[in-house]
Each structure stands twice: as structure tokens, then as C-alpha cells.
């Protein structure tokens, strides 16, 4: 081959290489526009355990990397992380509940340290709190109290069913709910219980120190059975172990509705879901991690159509999106969560810890 010919061949190869490089870059650029990715890799979402189904669903449809954690754990971490370590948390955003996001922000504001999470989004999904009760128990409670709600449960919790007309084999009245120290729904449920007993949604720390409240709240919480372990939630335990596990469980519609819809007829027909008045809700929000590169991109995904659809499929009520099986259209939801504010919930949690040891 002549020198000219060799130069020509080299030129062709060079052009081909440039073309290939441009092509590869083009593909890469196209990839980076896919939902859930950024130039720095997949977006990283910290997700409340109650929202695990929605987060997993979202992750399966995008390149989002999901970490599911108990809310108590996330709140503790995000409240106490050192300013300099926020960037190394490894998350771009947090899908959580409005009260938990606010608890973190309040804690850091009190400590006069840099916020670990930015201002949360508006609610992207909501679920009313429900009280799941075995029919036969609900009948007896109704006869004893009138309304079957937390006030009623707290009045009779821990006492033998026989004292209010129940069967000797039912033992004592056993309410249940998730652990408030660990789970966002557990904290919301005791918040709803307190507001029902006190008759208002803005209780203060002083209200929780009142002897009458403490007696009632202590009776309610000390009657929650211990010793039930494994990963199952109290409502799942209620359905699998039957009334032996709990007589009534406070939970949220997004869990109870779909589970009950899938349950066998013998279970489904024996359990009723009550919406204690005033209706209170768990409100899902997205909280960006301060300074995270992917925070905004993740917000777009989580609060966008994909995220809203995933929440709806998981049982959360999302305006404009079809509800999942087992989720009714009634009752209508209040404008706000109708729960004590974040500071009040923290005070209630402290009271709960003192009561339950």
C-alpha cells in the first residue's frame, strides 16, 4: 500500500471512530433523559416502610434506587446527621409523611443546624386512618360505648370482654397499632386517639400531662399486646392470626383496604373498617435532601405522573388517579390531616414512651 493510500485508510478509520464516538454519546445522552437517572447515576430515594409498595413499583419502572426504612429510623438519622455529613447520606430525596418531615425540620431548627431536608412538597397521596374491628367485637363495643372509636377503646382496653357483654374466650380487650416510635402510621394513630379523647386537634404538651388523659391513654397503650414479632404489621397479624392477635387495629386505609380486598372471604366478612370521626389522614410528601444533586429530578419523578400512579396502585388516594381495589370513594377527606402538629406529636410520643416503658 502506498503512503497516500495508507493516509486515506487512516482518515477513513478516524472518521469512522469519530462517528462511532458520536453515536455512543448520542445513545448515552438519550439514556440520561430516561426517568430516574442523572449524569451521576440513578436517583436515590429514601422511602417510608408504609410506602414500600409504591416505591418498589416506581423503582421497577425507572432507574430509581430505593431504600426502605422505618420512619423512626429515618427521622432519627435525618434529625441528627452532622451538617458536613448530609451530602454523604446517599439519598436525593425522602418519600415520607408530612408530620415526619416537619419533625425533622423542627428538630434541626431547634438545634440551629443546617436543614437536612428541604421544604416538603404538597401532599401527593393521602390515606384516611381506619380502625379495623372484628364484627362481633364491634357489636359489643357499640352496645357498650355507642360510637366505636378510640375513646371507647381506651375506656375498656385491657378489661375482660365479659365485663361489657363479650365472650369469656375473647380474653381482655386488645387494641393494636404499629409502633409509634418506629412507624409513621403508628404515630399518626396515637395522634388521632389523643385528639379524639381530648376533643380537639391542637393538643399541647400540657394536655398530655393531665392525669385523666394519662390514665386513659395508659390503659389504651398498656393493653396493646406485646410479644408479636416478625415483619408483619399489626393488621396483617390480625388477618392471619385472627382475633387472637388483636380485637381492633388502628391503621390506614391504604394498607387495610387492599389487604382486606385480597383476603379470604371468611376473614373479609368478619372485619369491618371504621373511619373514626373526625377523619384524620396520613399525607404523603416528598422532602428533598438538602444539597443533593438529584433532589429536583427525583421530585419530578416522585410527584409526577409515574409517582402518583404508583401511590394510587398501592392504595393511596391520589386526586385524578383511579383508586386501587379495596379503596372506597367515601368518606371524603378533610382539607388537612386533622392530626396534632409535629411538635405535639413529638410530645405525645414522649408520653407514650414513658407509659409503655
Amino acid at each position, binding site marked *: 500500500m502506498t503512503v497516500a493510500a495508507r493516509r486515506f485508510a487512516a482518515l477513513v478509520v478516524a472518521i469512522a471512530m469519530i462517528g462511532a464516538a458520536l453515536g455512543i454519546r448520542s445513545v448515552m445522552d438519550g439514556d440520561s433523559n430516561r426517568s430516574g437517572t442523572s449524569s451521576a447515576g440513578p436517583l436515590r430515594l429514601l422511602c417510608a416502610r408504609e410506602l414500600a409498595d409504591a416505591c418498589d413499583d416506581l423503582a421497577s419502572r425507572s432507574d430509581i434506587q430505593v431504600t426502605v426504612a422505618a420512619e423512626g429510623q429515618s427521622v432519627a438519622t435525618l434529625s441528627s446527621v452532622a451538617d458536613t455529613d448530609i451530602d454523604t447520606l446517599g439519598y436525593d430525596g425522602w418519600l415520607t409523611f408530612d408530620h415526619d418531615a416537619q419533625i425533622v425540620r423542627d428538630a434541626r431548627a431547634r438545634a440551629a443546624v443546617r436543614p437536612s431536608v428541604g421544604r416538603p412538597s404538597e401532599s401527593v397521596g393521602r390515606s384516611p386512618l381506619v380502625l379495623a374491628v372484628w364484627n362481633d367485637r364491634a357489636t359489643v363495643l357499640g352496645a357498650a360505648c355507642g360510637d366505636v372509636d378510640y375513646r371507647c377503646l381506651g375506656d375498656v382496653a385491657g378489661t375482660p370482654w365479659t365485663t361489657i357483654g363479650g365472650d369469656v374466650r375473647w380474653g*381482655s380487650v386488645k387494641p393494636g397499632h404499629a409502633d409509634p416510635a418506629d412507624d409513621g402510621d403508628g404515630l399518626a394513630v396515637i395522634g388521632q386517639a389523643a385528639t379524639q379523647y381530648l376533643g380537639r386537634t391542637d393538643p399541647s404538651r400540657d394536655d398530655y400531662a393531665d392525669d385523666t388523659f394519662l390514665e386513659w391513654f395508659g390503659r389504651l397503650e398498656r393493653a396493646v399486646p406485646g410479644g408479636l414479632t416478625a415483619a*408483619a404489621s399489626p393488621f396483617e397479624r390480625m388477618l392471619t392470626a385472627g382475633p387472637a392477635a388483636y380485637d381492633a387495629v388502628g391503621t390506614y386505609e391504604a394498607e387495610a383496604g387492599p389487604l382486606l380486598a385480597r383476603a379470604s372471604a371468611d376473614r373479609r366478612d368478619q372485619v369491618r373498617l371504621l373511619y373514626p370521626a373526625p377523619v384524620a389522614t396520613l399525607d404523603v410528601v416528598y422532602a428533598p435532601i438538602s444539597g443533593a444533586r438529584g433532589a429536583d429530578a427525583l421530585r419530578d419523578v416522585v410527584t409526577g405522573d409515574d409517582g402518583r400512579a404508583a401511590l394510587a396502585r398501592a392504595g393511596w388516594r391520589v386526586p385524578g388517579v383511579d383508586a386501587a381495589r379495596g379503596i372506597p370513594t367515601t368518606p371524603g377527606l378533610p382539607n388537612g390531616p386533622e392530626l396534632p402538629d409535629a411538635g405535639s406529636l413529638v410530645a405525645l410520643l414522649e408520653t407514650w414512651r414513658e407509659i409503655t416503658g
Partner: protein
Amino acid sequence: MRLRSLAHRSRGGTAALLVATTVLAGQATIALPAAAASCVTVDIASSPEKLVLLTDLGKRFGRSSAAEVGGRCVEVRVTKASSGAAATLLAANWPKPAKNGPRPVIWSPAASTWGAVLDQRRSEAGKSPYVTTPGTSFMLTPLVIGMPKPMADALGYPATPIGFSDVLALSQDPAGWAGKGHPEWGPFRLGKTNPNFSTSGLAQTVAQYYAATGKTSDLTLEDLARPEVDAFARGVESAVVHYGDTTLTFQNNLYRADRRGDPNGYASAIAVEEKSVVDYNRGNPDGILDPGEQPRKPRIPLVAIYPKEGTLFSDNPLIVLDAPWVSSAEATAARAFTKFVTTAKNQRRVLEYGFRPGNPAVAVGKPIVAANGLDPSQPQTTLEVPEPAVLAGVIDQWNQVRKKARVLLVVDVSGSMGDEADPKTGATKLDLAKTAAIAALDQFQPEDEVGLRIFSTDISDREPTDYRDLVPIGPISANKPDLQTQIERLKPTQGTPLYTAAEDAYTFMKDGFDATRINAVVLLTDGRNEDARNEDLAGLLAALRTTTEGESTTPVRIFTIAYGNDADESTLKRMAEATNAAAYSAVDPATIVNVFNAVVSNF
């Protein structure tokens, strides 16, 4: 990565079985083909009662499309490990896999509380937790009181709610069944396992203390110390037939008594899991059908009494261990298996095996139906698992109040016991047996009475020539040093006069029967009868049965240990069964320590 914490949703129940620590390490592996080299292998350490079920599910999983991780096939291998034994092994990082079985990827104890026990032990030892993700409870079974139906009927079953308090009060009634119009049934006899070894035994003992206090929750150490509670507990224990490491011993003995036409003669009630009642009434009392074994329904079925005070559940978690030997691929495969077993289709299979499904989509139905003596609508309430310190107190108290034992250790010192058993150390079979026997002495309580007899042909130049009492039966608190010394001095001698040794030991114990104690012979031998002067096995068994059938007023039980390959396991089993006891096998001499522990758990 999935972050989950152990403590959530389980306030108050952690470390619930903390003190049930001295548990058997009995392991048995279901033989499965070796994993293909390209497959991901998920080893499961399973509590015994669900071994067959999990093995079945593992095989089905292996054939399913779900058994694939990253393009590799997945194979599941299931190994039997009692919950306490596995917790002990995991606390020590599961040493010696060749001996103890493969290190598990999934651990499935009978109850989730064992997971908390494990991590508490590891924490106390400064080790990282292995149960960082709570297990998935894939099925449930409640603790019940299994009772022959005529006896339950006599207590008003099923119309009258019956509780631990009723049954335990009856066990303390000197009139026994006569007080219920059935003097022919004799005294009330209770079968319960040793709470140091058995989950159901521990649960029953907790329930017993609740019954004694009239509580269903918040049991305290002060409660345990109350004189009337102590008296109640002692009364209950006095009605115990014997203890043991597994409820299957009771079921097998009850079943044999039923086949002999005397089901009411062995035990009036046994504390078992509901699933065991299903197995019993199917004619498969131990839940395992050996090759060629055909289930035959008992003449008189058991019914499950769901105690009116409440009961405890075994929730059978599948725990994917966060252990260093578990690879990412294995953990992923383990989660795929967990998902597989919780599907509705496989949960129906769980039900077929007599467990309650962990997936609420599957209704509790056959075989958990009234026709099998069960009530799917029960139990209606639970007892609270006490706090760890109280649980420890329950165990301590039980050790104090349990029925005392009067035991004669009868050890074969025939020539074959001098055969080498451990090529590495050169230890003989007798050496290993001596070590095991001395270790087992620690399990007796000071008030237990223990003696030592050795046997071999012409071991003595005076009558009786085939055995010699080295340590007379007496309180072990005084006898222990002597027992240790004499056991250490044992040397192999002549042949094996097995039948004579067994019969004479039995007669000796019968003659000195103590009604306040469990009277038993522990017979260890590595051979078969080699005594031409006495080859009458039929006569021996007949003699044993004659005084055992119908539970004579002086029952003596012979617990046998078949030791080494040459032991006559079949004959030893028949001897044990003839006295409503249990036969143990230590074909591998290396297992003798565990086997000795299991035997002594009966006392």
C-alpha cells in the same frame, strides 16, 4: 439495600425466649442431590416440625420459573435444626459446618422470638446482629392442649370453654378423673416438654404460670415468687408423665397406646402445636411418613383445646440472615424463595400440612376443621410473652419445681466399646460416652436421684455376674463426684448381656419406685444381646409391657441409646416403646453428647 429494623412493630416481645438456651444441637439433613455447580444454593436451617413441608416447597421452587437469580438457577437445601440449637450455633457463627450442617442462608425457627434471642446473644458477645431484617412469617400454628376426645368430653368440650386453669387444676386433684365420673382413667397425667429445649414446652410453662396467677399479661417476677403460685406449679409438675425435647415422643407413645386399645392410659393431655393434632389424627403422629409407612387413624382422636385464657403462636419466620457467609446472590435467591412460599398457591400447600396460612388470601380450612378435632375460629385471644427477665425467672422456677427424677444410668462396658471412634484423637466409643455422660450430669437438679450401673458378661465374680452397681441411687448433690469418678474409670470388658441387664435394671427400679418422681432407666449400649443364657426378647418385652400397659401405678420407663453402627436399634426401640419411653440413636459416636442431653431432657 433494604433497611429494616428488628424491633419495630414488636414492642415488648424481644428476646422472649432468651433463657431457653441449652438446646439440642441435633441435626439431620434431608438428603438432596448436590447443588449443581452453576446454581445458587439457598441452605435453610429449619425447625423439625416443618422440615418435610419446606423440603417439598424447596423442590417445587427449584422446578419453578421463580428459581432464577441473575441468569443462574436456584436450588434450596433444607436441614433440620431445632430452634434453640440453631440459635446457639448462629450465636457462635455456626462453627463446623461439616458436623453441624451447612451454614444457612435462611433460618426458620419455630417462632420469631428466637431471632431476637440470637441477636441479643450476639450483642452481649460484642458481635454484629444476623437478623437485621425481620423474618417473613409464612405460616402459623397455635399452642393447644391435645386431649383424647372422651376426656375432653368429660370436661364439657366443646360447649364449655376450657382453660389451662381447668386442666391444671384437674392435674392437682387427688381424685383425678374419678372427680369427673371416670375413675377408670386413673390420675390425670400431663405430657409436656422441657422448656429448656422445646418452644412448645416453654410456651406451656409460661401459660401455666399465667394460669397460676389468673393473669393473661404483665407476668412479673413477684408473681413467680408468690407461695400460692409456686404451690400451683409444683402441683402441675407432679402430674407430668415425663419431659423430653420434643412433643413427638408423647404423640408416638399415645398413638401406640391407642393401637394397643388403651389410649387413655398414657397421658390425659399433652401441650402441643395445633399442627401436631392434625398429624396425630391422620395417623401420622410424628408428621413424617417413613418409606412404606401407611398412616392409620387412631381409634380415639385427639381434640385441640384452645385455652380460654389465651395461648401463644409459633409464627414460623423465614429469616434471611445478614451473615458474612451469605452472598448477595444467595440473599436475593432467598427472598425469591420467600416470595414463592407466600403465594396463595403454596399457602394452600402449607394448609395441607396442618399449618395456618400466613397469607390472609387463603382461608383457614381443611384439615383445620371440626372433624379433625380443631376449630379454625379459635383461639380468640393470646397470652403475652413475658419480658426477658420474667421469662428467665419462669425457666429458673421451672427448674426448681419440676418433677424430680430417679434415674439409673446403665452403661454397656462390653469389649466393643473399646473400638476407636475418633481417628483424629484415637478416642474410643467408651471415651466419648464417658465424656457425654459426665457432661449430662450437670443437667440434673440437686434433688434428682441418680445411680450408675455397668454391664458386661461376667463382669462380676459374684451374683449377679453380668452387671455391677458402681454408684447406688442417691441424690446427685451428694453422688455427683462419685459418679464422675466412676464414669471416668470405666473400661471395656467382655460381651453384652443386654436383655438381662435391661430386665434387671427395670425390676430394680420398679422395686424401689418413688411415686413423687419420674422413675427411669437410661440404657446405653453399642451392641446386641450376646448372652446365650438369656435370648428371650419376647419374654422381656412382654414383661415390660405387662407392667406398663394401662400405666400401672408404678411406671418405670427405659430410655435407650443405640450407640455406634453395631447397636441393635430395633430391639432398643421396642424396649423403649414397651415402657412408653423413647429410643435415641447415636449411630455416629460424635453425636453422643447431644444425644445424652436429649435423653436427660426427659427428667
